[in-house]
């Protein structure tokens, strides 16, 4: 079956110990049951404490109006008022949703195809391929905030690199013009993301059994056919990883726009709205939580779909 569930057993160094532990657990029931209980219980409690309780707390707060000052008694419960407000009145909400979706589509299309292309090229054992590989992967080690700083130097209207190179009479305001700044920022984000995707695909390509390609060649397939009909389908697990990574990257995008202009003027994102509403004085925690819940719902949609796919496949084998 897919490589996906072979892997954890085959390659994780920690693979063998659990098996041993499992055997002993049946032999020495008493203490080992306790140990096992603790080993499962503690992470479960930590998980509940730091993930689910805050998440549910956030959902609860989204039905309230609270400025963050005072205790629970100062929280006013207003039902779905916050949702009504963000869906109908809040001027930044729908642009933010739209930008998040553009972000997602853009990342799925541009860096993914670019990363795949680079991976295919690098997989051909070019000379200096390690050098290219490192150079292309390098942006990934930078934080998005830093990427934002670097690209601002390129985009700035007065004496920025891009305008100087283009030599236009009237400089383009790459960051200030709300019609184009989202795409300018996306290019910067893609610059970083491409290296990551490339590495994932490169690893995927290296793991494709060369015998498959040979067989395809013997059957008279062209190299394009081999790639699209044989190699690419075999890499399905990688594609799933890429998809998940990209979706996550698109939903959590925040630092790069925050560094540039605090996520205003065409760069609104849901994550920015959450922060803006919650952080600072006179915060509107209810409204911020409502936006966070919307973001959580979208994330859950993707995560549940993904988990459903993975587990339903495991059950089939």
């Amino acid at each position, binding site marked *: 079956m897919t490589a996906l569930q072979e892997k954890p057993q085959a390659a994780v160094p920690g693979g063998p110990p659990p098996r041993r532990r499992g055997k002993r657990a049946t032999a020495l029931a008493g203490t080992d049951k306790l140990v096992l209980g603790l080993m499962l219980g503690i992470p479960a409690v930590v998980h509940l404490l730091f993930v689910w309780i*805050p998440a549910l707390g956030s959902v609860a707060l989204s039905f309230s109006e609270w400025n963050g000052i005072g205790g629970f008694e100062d929280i006013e419960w207003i039902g779905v008022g916050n949702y009504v407000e963000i869906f109908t009145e809040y001027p930044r909400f729908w642009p933010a949703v739209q930008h998040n979706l553009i972000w997602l589509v853009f990342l799925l299309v541009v860096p993914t195809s670019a990363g795949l292309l680079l991976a295919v090229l690098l997989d051909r054992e070019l000379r200096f391929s390690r050098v290219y590989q490192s150079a292309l992967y390098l942006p990934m080690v930078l934080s998005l905030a830093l990427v934002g700083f670097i690209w601002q130097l390129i985009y700035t209207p007065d004496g920025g690199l891009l305008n100087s190179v283009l030599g236009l009479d009237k*400089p383009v305001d790459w960051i200030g013009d709300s019609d184009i700044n989202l795409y300018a920022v996306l290019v910067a984000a893609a610059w970083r993301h491409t290296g990551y995707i490339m590495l994932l695909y490169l690893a995927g390509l290296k793991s494709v059994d060369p015998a498959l390609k040979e067989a395809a060649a013997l059957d008279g397939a062209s190299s394009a056919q081999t790639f699209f009909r044989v190699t690419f389908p075999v890499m399905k697990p990688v594609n799933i990883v890429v998809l998940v990574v990209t979706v996550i990257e698109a939903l959590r995008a925040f630092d790069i726009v925050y560094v540039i202009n605090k996520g205003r003027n065409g760069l609104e994102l849901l994550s920015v709205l959450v922060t803006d509403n919650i952080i600072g004085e006179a915060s509107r925690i209810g409204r911020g939580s409502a936006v966070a819940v919307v973001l959580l719902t979208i994330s859950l949609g993707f995560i549940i779909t993904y988990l459903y796919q993975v587990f339903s496949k495991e059950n089939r084998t």
Partner: protein
Amino acid sequence: MVRYTPGSTPLPHFGRRAMLRAMLAGAGVAAASGVLSACGSGSGGDPNAVTFGNNLSDQVPKDAITAALKAFEGQSGGLSVTINTKQHEQYQEQINNYLQGKPDDVLAWFAGYRMRFFADQGLTGDLTDLWGKIGGNYSDALKQASTASDGKQYFVPFTNYPWGVFYRKSLWQERGYAEPKTLDELVALATKMKSDGLVPIAFAQKQGWPGMGTFDQLNFRINGYQFHVDLLAGKEDWQDKRVKEVFDTWKRLLPFHQENALGRDWQEAAQSLQQKKSGMYLLGSFLGQQFPDAEKDDLDFFPFPEINPEHGTDTVEAPIDGYMMAKKPANSEGALKLLEYLSTAEPQLTYLKSDSSVVATNKDADTSGYNSLQKKAAEVIKNAKHVTQFLDRDTDPGFASEAATNGIIEFIKNPDNVDSVLKGMADQAKNIFK
């Protein structure tokens, strides 16, 4: 397949981490108040220690305030000051949780609405008694800015700085420009600068707040100090024709402003002034930080010219930085002593050594050590009948960071849409100041 493994095992983790992030983003708040309060290292009531919450996180100002506090230790008879420094922006972002947790005994903050906001909710200590002692150190305008809605004082001013129209003396002499006294003179000057190949008015709005300065100047020159206060307190309507007149005047000046302002930092705009590419720049005197030391003396400014003769130039925008006391300081006697010391000229002048763009608030501070810009700043502030703080310090912070910022950005993008911009601002104001 095996080679691929390292990439695939963490698969579920990506999902989990992202969820965690999304949730923490939203729900962290509930937990944060507990966690953050641990930041202010409480000194458990040691009678000889005072804790000091410092937001001057850059090295030079931080060293200067440290030096001022060291001097206090020397003359306080055995008190020692523990300084807790937080990064400047972070300090503001966390102020809610900070004040509700265990804040330091004496803590940095801003005068005006932003002080009142916390004082009104009883989150900071009443300093009225202290003001009985230190009141003589300050002008009435400063006392006004330190007073909350209940008529009591909650704030001790430390330094302030004026907003004005800055220019380079050498450039103006060379070209024979003179300081405009009225709006028409300003327009005439800007027209001349434009024909001389200069950008008349440097402008930057990427950070979202510098444009508020322009709005403020136009607003209190046209409608006066009281309207500024009432409008920002939510007592006047943003769709009022007086507000529209402010934006219409701004629209008249906009063609003289530097283009592409929405993609520019104020630092870059200040540099265009320094490089003599722009003729003038309406900003706070911190603009001087972008000038090399050798050229600082060449920097001068004038108060924004008169528009409505009824109000003349009676108002100056001069934001005040200063200190508040925690509601329940661990060492209240020491905290009051420290605040009293901070109201004197000595620590203020010590601090000015690091930052020559601000001036002391103590009215008896010796100004002989000031550079020419500081002397002028002190003069302008002293002569003003009214002192405003700044749009984002004179109004609800939520209104400032959302409605006002985005409204001004929208106006700069589409100066012809004043009506819809103002409707948006009015709607949000009604929502916030209900």
